[in-house]
């Protein structure tokens, strides 16, 4: 039974099949919502309400010509997209969706998995940087430099914001943190500030407006992705979608009480909670304009980081009060 469960876990839910279908659905949801906020229709053509449009886009890109620049580091250039997709898909397995038990740690749910997950979520940034750098295009290189510059801005506040609920729950295991807040929902309110900070940082991590600086098309053409085309670009786009699902899942686990109820009910929980997070992300995207890279760094260190420290202080004080 355990083997079957593991296989289902790896391949169907939340494994590859679910990741692919759900991340394309989330992309559709994001696009549609963004379009409606802008008074547009959004995708309408493929499938009911354009539901299949992201999948159609994916296959269209897979069929397109794939060009590698002559001066690029060819091995690196080709290896990065699948590598990035593998990293975020692995991160997805660490979300406590089902097939875990709170008493006993397993390969996908263990003490310290929150750190591993955050680490796995940091890697895509380096993937983007290396992608820009190995393309050797001027615009890609600037994009790559901007990716890293931004990383210094948002990474520390994100870690502080995500780890403070863990401090309150007194555990480094995602499943236990989620279970803690399910038992004491009132305590989740303590982390409200951290929730907002995490949303902003995730927006920056996913390089969406107002933080879409590394691939700001009106400034540096496609940024890191300037030279990418065809299959590699398709995989990169899928990777970004999966990263969005994982990041939304992480926020939902840590701040919104996780996904209880086993495979079926947990799935519904997962969809509702991640869509809620993605809704906020789309809202930020629709209502802001792109800022400059120096403004990101100063904004992160002037406001986000001090607020994240404040959140940590609040958590420590609350923890002292309840124990």
């Amino acid at each position, binding site marked *: 039974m355990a083997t079957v469960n593991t296989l289902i876990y790896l391949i169907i839910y939340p494994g590859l099949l679910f990741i692919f279908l759900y991340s394309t659905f989330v992309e559709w949801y994001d696009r549609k919502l963004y379009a409606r906020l*802008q008074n547009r229709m959004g995708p309408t053509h493929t499938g009911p309400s354009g539901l299949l449009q992201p999948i159609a886009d994916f296959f269209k890109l897979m069929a397109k010509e794939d060009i590698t620049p002559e*001066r690029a580091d060819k091995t690196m250039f080709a290896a990065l997209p699948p590598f990035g997709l593998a990293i975020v898909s692995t991160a997805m397995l660490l979300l406590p969706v089902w097939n875990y038990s709170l008493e006993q740690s397993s390969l996908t749910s263990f003490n310290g998995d929150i750190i591993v997950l955050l680490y796995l979520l940091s890697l895509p940034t380096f993937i983007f940087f290396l992608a820009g750098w190995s393309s050797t295009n001027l615009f890609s290189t600037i994009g790559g*430099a901007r990716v890293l510059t931004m990383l210094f801005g948002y990474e520390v506040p994100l870690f502080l914001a995500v780890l403070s609920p863990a401090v309150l729950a007194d555990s480094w295991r995602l499943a236990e943190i989620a279970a803690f807040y399910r038992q004491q929902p009132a305590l989740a309110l303590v982390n409200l500030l951290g929730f907002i900070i995490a949303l902003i940082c995730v927006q920056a991590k996913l390089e969406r407006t107002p933080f879409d600086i590394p691939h700001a098309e009106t*400034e540096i053409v496609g940024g890191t992705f300037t030279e990418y085309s065809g299959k590699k670009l398709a995989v990169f786009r899928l990777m970004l979608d999966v990263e969005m699902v994982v990041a939304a899942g992480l926020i939902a686990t840590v701040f919104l009480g996780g996904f209880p109820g086993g495979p079926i009910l947990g799935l519904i929980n997962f969809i509702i909670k991640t869509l809620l997070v993605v809704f906020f992300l789309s809202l930020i995207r629709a209502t802001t304009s*792109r800022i*400059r890279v120096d403004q990101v760094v100063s904004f992160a260190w002037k406001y986000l980081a001090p607020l994240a420290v404040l959140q940590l202080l609040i958590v420590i004080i609350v923890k002292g009060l309840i124990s």
Partner: protein
Amino acid sequence: MNFQIPIGPQHPALKEPIGLRITVEGEIIRDADIRLGYNHRGIEKLAEQKTWIQNVYLTERICGICSHSHTTCYVQGVEKLMELETPKRGLYIRMLISELERIHSHLLWLGVAGHEAGFDSFFMYVWRDREIVMDILETISGNRVHYAINTIGGVRRDLDELQVKRILDSLEVLRRRSQYYLNLGTTEPSFVARLARVGYLSREDALSLCAVGPTLRASGVPMDVRKDDPYAAYDEVPFEVCTAGTCDVLGRTVVRIKELFQSYNIIEYLMKNLPTGPIAVRAPRRAKPNEVVSRYEAPRGENLHYIKSNGSDKPERLKVRAPTLGNYAATIKMLKNGFIADVPLIFAAIDPCICCAERAVALIDARTGQEKIMSLKSLKELSLKVSPTTTRKREIEWPL
């Protein structure tokens, strides 16, 4: 370390081809250079071979956005050469179209500014409302872009009661929306952070570099041809010249939105005081030898046509100075010491119309092969210089 970035001739921030070479140090621009000529059609030379009336349609095709500006400027000059008295109603309709064109051009610019700053929601909203103006223009002239309403001696299409009512009704909607955009454009924090103190052009620089239009007015110089040198019936219409003192992209945005309100007022006045009578007079085929300087306030600034006749049915010389050309010198000044991220915004802030600025010369085939090879070659040299052994560039300065 410095390196050069080619912006254009093909670049997502440019709607038309132009070459900008930008020398950057990290993210900071140290030098900028402009190269025109990708879009030349030889209109000035061609105009010498066409008759007076054919040239109305030729000048209309100088630009897609300010098509009416160029024909009005040209037609005004020719009417002076031919000593024609244009009927009042014709002038009013001509002014109506030119104000509608100003509104649609400024709304277009606002949307583009939003897009360049990555504020796509603003872009979508503004362009949705621009359709109202485009629809009015279509009901009046039958066309959305090249209105073809001007002719020598007047205009070609009359207005009826229903159209007047429709125009007045849509003004209400446009006023309300523009107020919203004024609030949004000047209060949305991330948008203002991108616009304020970007592309600084002091009053002295603006004057000495001969900037025109909203760029000049945003530096606090109240210069507007409609006020200084009233053409058509602008001396009868009450309106104000809008200026801003901030000298940056935010100021240019504010000036343009304020001008929208002035245009609404002008249109309202024109529609309420529309004179009756004919709309055009018959024009002769030839003009006596003479010369004339015709000035016009296009949405982007002062438009100037110098027309010289030699007694035949063709002009001896037609010189067109579109507003964008007057702003290029100022743009280079504004770009220096800015950020790469601000290039599209600063460049967009003059509302560049590259077609307008490039009209002269003979029928050059605007193939850019030579220029492209040049820039590629220089890029290759650059990359070889940086890394003689490997194929990759490594020593690019950190932007921190």
